[in-house]
């Protein structure tokens, strides 16, 4: 018993230790994202997850992606979230009272089954036979990434630019002050927001006779 454990630990390389360290940070901070009741803290926890994953990327010799993960993901996207949280001043944490607790009896078992399925598949697959590629380090360099991006990934790269352009238009049209557009364009001032639909009507009798 002890032998096995000592054996296991004696076989560990520094990489193992780093991996476990960052994996624990990643999982812990991911849990924190879910557990925190304040969106702001959740966002900060997510930055930690991102960073831990970036570290994992380094372990996987994807240095360029690791940098992008920190700079773009953690540095820009999450900051955008934080910005919106600040803008809307969402201090109010969600209440502890979940009015729909019954639903979790569907969701939680499903999630467990899902994870068990993935776990089983990964275990059955015996992935450990996959030897690390000797070219892994070369594959993740900036040079190599750039080369592939402008050859094989040229089209996705261009398409991504379309995507971003569109996202800008979309975000703009949603977040812009509605009044300016509406009033100016139609000359109708302050149109009433339409009334909510009537409270649930009884479904009409099915007429089969």
């Amino acid at each position, binding site marked *: 018993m002890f032998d096995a454990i000592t054996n296991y630990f004696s076989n560990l390389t520094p990489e193992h230790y780093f991996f476990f360290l960052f994996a624990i940070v990643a999982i812990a901070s991911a849990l924190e994202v879910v557990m925190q009741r304040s969106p702001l803290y959740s966002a900060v926890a997510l930055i930690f997850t991102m960073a831990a994953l970036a570290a994992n990327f380094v372990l996987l010799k994807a240095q360029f992606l690791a940098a992008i993960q920190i700079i773009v993901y953690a540095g820009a996207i999450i900051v955008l979230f934080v910005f919106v949280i600040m803008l809307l001043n969402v201090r109010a944490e969600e209440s502890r009272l979940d*009015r*729909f*607790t*019954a*639903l*979790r*009896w*569907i*969701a939680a*078992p*499903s*999630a467990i*089954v*899902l994870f068990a*399925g*993935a776990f*089983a*598949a990964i275990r059955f697959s015996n992935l450990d036979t996959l030897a690390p590629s000797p070219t892994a380090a070369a594959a993740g360099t900036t040079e190599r990434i750039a080369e592939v991006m402008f050859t094989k990934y040229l089209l996705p790269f261009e398409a991504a630019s379309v995507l971003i352009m569109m996202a800008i238009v979309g975000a703009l049209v949603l977040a812009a002050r509605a009044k300016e557009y509406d009033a100016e364009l139609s000359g109708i001032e302050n149109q009433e927001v339409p009334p909510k639909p009537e409270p649930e009507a009884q*479904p009409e009798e*099915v*007429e*089969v*006779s």
Partner: protein
Amino acid sequence: MNTTTLLGGIIFAPLIGALVLGLFGKRMNERTVGLIASATVGVSFVLAIIAFTTLLGVAPEGAEGIRRLHNPLFPWIEVGSFKAPFDLVLDPLSALYVVFVTGVGFLIHIFATGYMHGEGGYYRFFCYMNLFMFNMLVLILGSNMLVMFVGWEGVGLCSYLLIGFYFQQQGPAFPNQSAKKAFIVNRIGDVAFAIAIMLVFMKAGSIEFAAVNEWARSLTAAEPMTVAAFGLGGASTIALLMFIGATGKSAQIPLFVWLPDAMAGPTPVSALIHAATMVTAGVYMVARTSEVFVKAPSAMFVVATIGALTALGAATIGLAQWDIKKVLAYSTVSQLGYMFLACGVGAFGAGVFHVVTHAFFKALLFLGSGSVILGMHHEQDMRKMGGLRKFMPITHATMAVGWLAICGFPLLSGFFSKDEILYQTFTTNAFANPVFGKIFWGIGALTAILTAVYMTRLMVLTFWTKERWHDDHGHDHGHADHADDGHGHHGLAKGETPHESPWSMTLPLIVLAIAAAVGGYVGVPNGLGHLVGIENSNMVEHFLEPSVAHVGSHGAVAGHGVEAAAPVAHDATLELGLTAFSILLALGGIGVGFWIFRKNPLLKLPKILEDKWRVDELYEATIIHPIRKLSESILWKAVDVRSIDGLVNAVADGIRGLGGTMRYLQSGLTRSYVAVILLGAACLVGYFLVQGYVK
């Protein structure tokens, strides 16, 4: 016009009429509308006659010796080996149909120009009528099952539109309900038909009628006459599915319930669609694919049984109805049963012959009843009629012809066709055991008597006994049948008397009366023919011979082609004997009718008959109600996910004993959707892994 485009002309004339009326009809006066509507159908009729005569001059083709005119219109669907061109074909069977459909249709259109006078939506009515003619002709002339299906659905749609024509009318017998009922019941049959088409394509490799019949003919032997044969996916299955389709359209048990209700529509519609043409489409389909039926004796047996039972059942119901149109409606159902009985025993020719004669006399009777209804100011209750002979002499005379014809009075059209069916039924050997034929014959004979009785009752109540139209005592006015065809005010006011209808209505009556009287001479049964010294006297059946299959009345099953060569093989004595017997039946039935109803016209018959054997109630209780409950309460609540809150809640209640069910019933909740997606994902992943593990 050359022969190839002739058929196209037949179908497109009414379509053009419908389009013109639909687009511009609102601005036209009644005269122009009526003229366009009738003229286009008239053109079809003339073209049909030309086509018919052309067909007689065409050389028979193929081993079967079928004369055909072919008119390809456009290639409709071509996918791989599946081809369904939009082609029209005229062969003896369709030729006969086209001629009588356009002919009767033409007369009814003329009648309707008078009948519908002053109604709102005059042009709309004729637009639908023309559209109906177009669809009916597509149904008849289509060269393959899919084109037929187009017409099949199209006539259903037009029937729906026309039944619901008086849409403003509300109340217990709201026409909209009848329209819907007709539509939904028909849909049930259509599903079976659609599946049959696919099955046919799989088996025969084509859905062209010619090829389908060819395939059926090539089957070496008929399938065994067992229930199991239906499960084989062969001829029996196909035949049964097609017959289910036919029961929907032709109002047979168990799908007949819609037809009597369909009388809510205007009377010309009842005459054209629900008596003469559309409802016989089922018979047409069976005759069209008769080769398949011949190879499926078990299906034939079902056809004959359903036909016989429908004939008898509807006749009994007809005995006790008070609404003049309801009597005729049940009479139609009953006569349709007769036609299916004929098909079921293998006498397809006789069945089609009866379709034709029935079209004449039933259209006549319906139009006559329309004339009566109009003369009585939209009164349909026979208890309030009586003594109309004096006031409506032409209507009375023509209807009398129709009455005698349907009763099978000797030497009128109904006599020949009915007699032929009864004879063929008696001598059939479509079934392994000849006793079946005798039983069916017995039912048929009984039906014949009942037919004579209830038709005599109709005539007595309407025309002969004392005038009752100002009587106001005693009859249950709340009866549901009572007000089907009224527009607010109906019935005669005090001091009014019934009046004869205008010439536009009486003229078609007269023409139809002549047709109903002499129409039968194209099909004088052979026995009678021999008696007066004519060989091959049954012209209709000889004409149809090549295009319908033949279960020999004498000889082996599927002795196709052999029979044609030996028509003299008829047992003349037996046939004459049966003929004499059916004369007795007819006269006896009429006599009984007079005897009972002359003195006591308002005799009450058993309530169960008046209530139509309570079939509607049975359906309501056993089928419609459960389905409605299922879809409303169970499926809707359980399957629709927002209600999963409720469902889950119930479960959770049980688990944790939390009260307050209602607070979970809030729905539209995004998180419940997330939960469902998670659940679905878990099921999918789990299922895949289990499958992988099993393998």
